């Protein structure tokens, strides 16, 4: 596919192929657009809105919006940074996120976004919702306290594993992740080797008995902000 579409992100000229989304074209050009529900290879979901950019002055999600010739995209502006900070802070108060004992800490994309954005504490009141933990599966646990409803496990199970282990039920505030069985995860065909288990950006879906394997200081986001890999990959290419 020829990179024959040209558009700009924050004034920088970017070349893209037809059919690419803004987030894909940006990533190929070494520009990081923050994201949570987007995972390369999965069909776009557009759920978390953390990737919100302005295209020709109108807000849209960069992970679902296809590029178009001459498009003017704003990404790293104070307005959009503030919006993304709000979204991340809301996710923190909407669930029960106890980073201090979470196995995912240091590897968690939600936490990493908070660090990158310089969030020391959310400004909103905590909601402390009642959520369940599903320990029924011998090798995998689901902690709904931490689930941010990004749908990455749902899509990975369907698209990559060729199964259909996860699905959403309920709407709005009632929406939650469910498994494809009457009872719990233990009653599904989920296996610890499923790609879906590794698709979760937070600590909601975890392999049992492997937590805290990496020492503090050597975890992915201890020193390097999330997105640095994207920003430096392009610098290396130059």
């Amino acid at each position, binding site marked *: 596919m020829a990179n024959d579409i040209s558009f700009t992100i924050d004034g920088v000229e970017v070349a893209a192929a037809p059919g690419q989304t803004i987030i894909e074209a940006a990533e190929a050009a070494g520009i990081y657009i923050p994201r949570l529900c987007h995972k390369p290879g999965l069909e776009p979901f557009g759920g978390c809105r953390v990737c919100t950019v302005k295209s020709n002055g109108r807000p849209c999600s960069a992970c679902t919006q296809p590029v178009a010739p001459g498009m003017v995209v704003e990404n790293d502006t104070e307005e959009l940074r503030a919006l993304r900070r709000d979204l991340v802070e809301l996710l923190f108060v909407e669930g*029960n996120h106890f980073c201090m004992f979470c196995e995912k800490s240091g590897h968690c994309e939600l936490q990493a976004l908070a660090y990158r954005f310089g969030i*020391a504490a959310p400004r909103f009141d905590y909601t*402390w919702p009642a959520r369940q933990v599903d320990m029924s599966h011998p090798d995998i646990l689901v902690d709904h306290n931490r689930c941010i409803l990004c749908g990455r496990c749902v899509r990975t199970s369907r698209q990559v594993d060729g199964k259909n282990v996860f699905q959403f039920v309920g709407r709005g505030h009632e929406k939650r992740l469910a498994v494809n069985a009457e009872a719990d995860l233990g009653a599904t065909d989920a296996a610890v080797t499923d790609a879906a288990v590794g698709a979760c950006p937070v600590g909601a879906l975890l392999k049992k008995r492997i937590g805290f394997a990496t020492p503090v200081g050597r975890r992915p986001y201890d020193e390097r902000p999330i997105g640095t890999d994207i920003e430096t990959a392009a610098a290396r290419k130059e």
Partner: protein
Amino acid sequence: MAKPRIATTSLAGCFGCHMSLLDIDDRILQVAELVDFDRSPIVDFKRITARCAIGLIEGGCCNEENVEVLRHFRKNCDVLVSVGDCATMGGIPALRNLVPLEECLREAYLEGPTVHNPERRMPDDKELPLLLDKVYCCHEVVKIDYHLPGCPPSADTIFRALVALLSGKQVDLPYGLIKFD
């Protein structure tokens, strides 16, 4: 000129954040040169004795006494800092927010597997501060000027914040000093 005063307290916390404050090692001498400690577990006054420049709060509010102390700090400190995850988000004590208070007390004093309480008595001494319905982080109770997250925040984080505040600057934590664990 009189030195600025610092007051510190531990509300619903574990004193881990105060340990981290001591963990700034010999830099504590630099701090001691710049400030005088007012009410603090380090000196054991019960009330703030004079207007303080900085108040450091460890822990959130789990009972009415915590709320009273926090308000006392807000009234008597120019800058109030939430230190640690318990102060900034409730922390481990806030795990009880996932269970109704009554159920929580029943489990702790009557039905827990290791409980021995033949008289089935709940804590009822008048001297005990009443528990709140849930644990609140500090900024849900009073205005907080700065947050130093972490369980506990590193000594570097605390030292950097103190130095900034004592030189009249904003606290601006670089990447690597904002940590939630």
